[in-house]
């Protein structure tokens, strides 16, 4: 046997190991790639819908679309969804996109199915994941018919040609495909508050968990930015500035049903401070709803704190 032969034979196990590692790595990579694939809504969920713009206005108010998607100027018209508001986070800065009816810079060209996939599955028309700064994590719980009504209403809103500003995120959070893994871990169409709920509490849960997404600010997040269900509505650091978003459940929260409903209607706390900060836009939306809807949210909030 020549020297070269023995050297070749000696190298073989290493080559095998490398080959096996590469194979396992590739298989794991393929598995991750498969798990992280954007998954749109099933055809069954999209079937049989018919949009009613008038009903959609109430959904629009309850879901709080304008709070984030109206222009950055506090005096901007909340019906012009030009985008541009900045949302700082530990992952970087998100900028709310233009979702006005402008065909180029907004969503004027979107079909209803594309809209529902965006809002309820966090998948864009070109098949990319959206970041969960956009609360599809809540809207996934909504009735597709409500979202079809919302679509019908939003097509009646004015167009605005302001280009959307790209998010400013660091590596690895700027890789959208990675969100597929996040979704696999955290995206959940189930309710957080469960048990035997009254009809009013059930309606309130729908409004609060699926549409108004109260928990997005009032519940703390883990290191990957997912809400912590065991800390539901117990208050959290302010995502967009100084101070804290207050607890609306737990030992420190002593508002009555009347107090909560009256606050959502008027913006007055039980001690007659007046709403401010990001909650001001929430109240500005919710005060357009029927009082029975606000009463239902109040019933849910009290139930969630039990």
């Amino acid at each position, binding site marked *: 046997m020549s020297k070269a032969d023995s050297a070749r034979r000696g190298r073989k196990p290493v080559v095998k190991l490398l080959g096996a590692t590469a194979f396992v790595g590739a298989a794991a990579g393929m598995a991750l790639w498969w798990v992280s694939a954007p998954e749109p809504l099933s055809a069954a969920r999209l079937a049989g819908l018919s949009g009613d713009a008038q009903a959609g206005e109430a959904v629009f108010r309850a879901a709080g679309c304008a709070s984030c998607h109206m222009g950055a100027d506090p005096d901007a018209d909340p019906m012009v969804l030009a985008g541009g508001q900045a949302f700082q986070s530990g992952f970087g800065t998100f900028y709310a996109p233009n979702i006005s009816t402008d065909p180029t810079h907004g969503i004027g060209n979107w079909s209803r199915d594309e809209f529902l996939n965006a809002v309820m599955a966090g998948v864009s028309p070109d098949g990319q994941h959206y970041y969960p700064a956009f609360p599809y994590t809540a809207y996934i719980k909504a009735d597709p018919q409500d979202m079809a009504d919302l679509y019908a209403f939003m097509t009646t809103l004015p167009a605005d040609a302001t280009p959307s500003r790209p998010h400013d995120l660091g590596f690895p959070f700027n890789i959208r495909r990675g969100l597929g893994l996040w979704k696999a871990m955290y995206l959940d169409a189930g309710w957080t508050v469960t048990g035997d709920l009254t009809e009013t509490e059930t309606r309130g849960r729908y409004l609060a968990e699926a549409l108004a997404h109260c928990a997005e600010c009032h519940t703390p997040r883990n290191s990957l930015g997912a809400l912590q269900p065991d800390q539901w509505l117990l208050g959290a650091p302010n995502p967009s500035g*100084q*101070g*804290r978003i207050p607890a609306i459940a737990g030992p420190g929260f002593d508002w009555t049903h009347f107090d909560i409903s009256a606050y959502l209607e*008027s913006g007055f706390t039980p001690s007659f401070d007046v709403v401010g*900060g990001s909650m001001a836009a929430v109240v500005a939306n919710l005060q357009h709803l029927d009082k029975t809807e606000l009463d239902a949210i109040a019933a849910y909030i009290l139930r969630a704190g039990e």
Partner: protein
Amino acid sequence: MRRIVLGASLFFTALSLPALAQDHPEIGQRQGQFNLIVHNFAVLGGMAQGRVDYDATLAQTAADNLFHITRHDQSRLWPEGTDAQSVDSTRALPAIWENLDDFVSKFADLQMAAENVQTVAGDGLDALRPAVGALGGACQACHQTYRAEAG
């Protein structure tokens, strides 16, 4: 030498601490003004929300007070350096001083809304309610933009 090091470290510690509220009595003074606004607004808001029965005399007194409190000259209450980034004990955002004209104009809106409440306070609950709503709206306009979330 040791004293110099100690002195220097105290100096730099002082630099890195936020200013203390007692250095700025205006903060407590303007908070006192807002507390008095709440003290009177609670009477009107309580009637508007149906927490207490409408009472023309009580409503008029509260509305008169609000008229006068909102006429208090603000010029010495908002010195530079009394924002929430410089001092811990205030929620007044630096944006106030960056948009002083807008802040002043929103305060003028508050004065107008208070005057409107004063005009209608004795005319019954139906007249009072929208005026109180508008007054709350004037409060909210500033709270939305110029007040930080509570600690």
